[in-house]
């Protein structure tokens, strides 16, 4: 499907919906503009709120390949862009022996087949693609400057090979967990969207999409319980991912609604800090189960 085939945000919303991702107006508009304007989309929000899933859904609806670049401390160009396959180059050199003339041997050493494409180069080569740059805040700030350069040109220059340019620029999605402030120069180029927790009805719908054969009552109970947990000032409030996990866990145990015993047994799917678990078990659990 061509990116231009979405006339308005509603069309994007419908397509995302069909792809199994239920967007609200904000997400749909952000996705629409990212596709139409070719601007990177900078997503922030509490963990587990569906930032990475949105990139996957975007790839699905545009018929593009998802390429993911997970950032971490110390990541550099040879892990993000490309690297040379040195052992193979050596083998090639050895196999050629003394017979070949030097000039052509040299040229053959830096052949495309010895190039190891890393995520960014993969995204540029295989258009159309969606490039997900996950947790950019974990990378060093020098890496941001480097990214800025690549995103501005949608091209990578390899000294030995020349410039590789994307046929159609990839749709770029950046996510951040705000462990540090991402440089404004990078943010300025992007559309910024803060993804909030979904409301009750949408959360129920999302879970039912993900786990189709689960009992409706259970979904509603869990969504209500999670909504209470989010208000309870925990160290780590559960996100949608936790709601889905918890529902799945209860569903596997054969539950059709939330009861105290099973809720206690599966609490670890939703609440993942020891201190939080103690608090929930002590103060909140009876209330959570009653509240339905």
């Amino acid at each position: 499907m061509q990116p231009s085939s979405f006339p308005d945000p509603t069309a994007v919303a419908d397509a995302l919906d069909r792809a199994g991702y239920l967007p609200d107006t904000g997400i749909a508009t952000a996705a629409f503009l990212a596709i139409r304007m070719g601007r990177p989309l900078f997503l922030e929000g509490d963990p587990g709120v569906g930032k990475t899933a949105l990139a996957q859904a975007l790839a699905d609806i545009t018929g593009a390949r998802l390429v993911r670049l997970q950032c971490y401390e110390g990541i550099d160009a040879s892990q993000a862009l490309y690297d040379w396959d040195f052992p193979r180059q050596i083998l090639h050199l050895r196999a050629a022996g003394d017979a070949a003339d030097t000039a052509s041997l040299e040229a053959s050493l830096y052949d495309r087949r010895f190039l190891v494409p890393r995520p960014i180069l993969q995204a540029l080569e295989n258009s159309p693609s969606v490039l997900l740059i996950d947790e950019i805040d974990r990378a060093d700030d020098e890496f941001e400057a480097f990214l800025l350069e690549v995103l501005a040109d949608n091209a990578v220059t390899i000294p030995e090979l020349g410039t590789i340019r994307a046929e159609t620029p990839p749709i770029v999605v950046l996510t951040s967990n705000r462990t540090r402030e991402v440089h404004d120069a990078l943010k300025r180029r992007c559309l910024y969207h803060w993804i909030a927790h979904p409301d009750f009805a949408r959360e129920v719908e999302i879970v039912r999409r993900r786990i189709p054969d689960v009992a409706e009552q259970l979904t509603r109970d869990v969504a209500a319980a999670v909504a209470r947990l989010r208000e309870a000032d925990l160290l780590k409030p559960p996100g949608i991912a936790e709601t889905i996990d918890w529902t799945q866990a209860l569903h596997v145990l054969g539950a059709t609604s939330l009861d105290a015993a099973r809720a206690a047994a599966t609490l670890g799917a939703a609440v993942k800090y020891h201190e939080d678990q103690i608090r929930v078990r002590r103060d909140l659990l009876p209330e959570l189960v009653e509240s339905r």
Partner: protein
Amino acid sequence: MIASGSPVAAMTGFARALRAAGVAADATRLATSVAALDHLDPLDIEHVYWATRLALCAEPDDLPRFEALFDAWFRDRPAAPPIPSLPDPATVSAQLRSLPRAQDDNSGEQPLRTAANDTDVLRRHDISALTDAERDEINRMIAMLAPKVGARRTRRYRPGGRERIDVPRTVRAMLRDGGEPALLAYERRRTKPRRLVLLLDVSGSMSPYADGLLRFAHAAVRVAPATTEVFTMGTRLTRITRPLRLRDAELALRAAGSAVPDWSGGTRLGESLRAFLDRWGQRGTARRAVVVLASDGWERGDAELLGEQMARLARLAHRIVWVNPHRGRSGFVPATGGMVAALPHVDELVAGHSFDALRNVVEVIAHA
């Protein structure tokens, strides 16, 4: 409404209003938002909302201000929720000036008038009991401190040393020599400065020391702007790293002062610390960092909460240094409620009442 004039003019005015409210809605972002609206329906208020929000906002803190202003500009609603604006710089500087000054007119006690040029004595003197001239001298000295944190090893390697063989470089050398094994190239781990987090108590009981500590923080930010974070704690938590990045100390202090709404107010250390850990610390700011907490430990809130939050901080941070100005007084026992609750989790309890004490803090941080 937009109908009453060109959309571009309306959005330019709106962006200007956002900037005045502290949102980073610069010209580039404005251009993006106008371009975005080009793809949308400019007569649909929801489309205008998203075109401006997606392009003009840059962090979650911007969103409440954006909502309030958007309602006022485009939905013709009276700006019912007052737009949070920065306080008038004049009042703030007056506040700052009056705040940390010693009471010179205090009951004839004129400490060290003759010793004002004797820096050796001055540097050991309690900051809270200085005259204006002495204070200026001390401020100059604090500005020259360079609080720098020790380094930690990272995952990244750089050439040199004998730590491990750098395969790509070795192979590249081999390729040049026609595949013959050449000299081995080595690499070693890169080191990076550890993050430094300063949490400054700006409540009433700390006010004599607030100015000195802020100057200390400014010196720290100047040495390592990218790896230093500064927050103030009082009745609430305020991040002042950005204003402190201004080069000029006076300007930086004034900007920081205007960002802090709770000067000389009460103390809710536990709650402020929890806010810090929730919003910053746990996400990564405090992880493996050297955390310096400057407070006298007078806690008006729940000391038990402070203890819990200190335990949380201790699990994240590399080292916790508590700077207590009263530590410098003879006969000091850490007996305030907050101090007692926090002490088990503190690695180092140091004084911070004089220049020498602050210099000692620099030493402690450097070797943390």
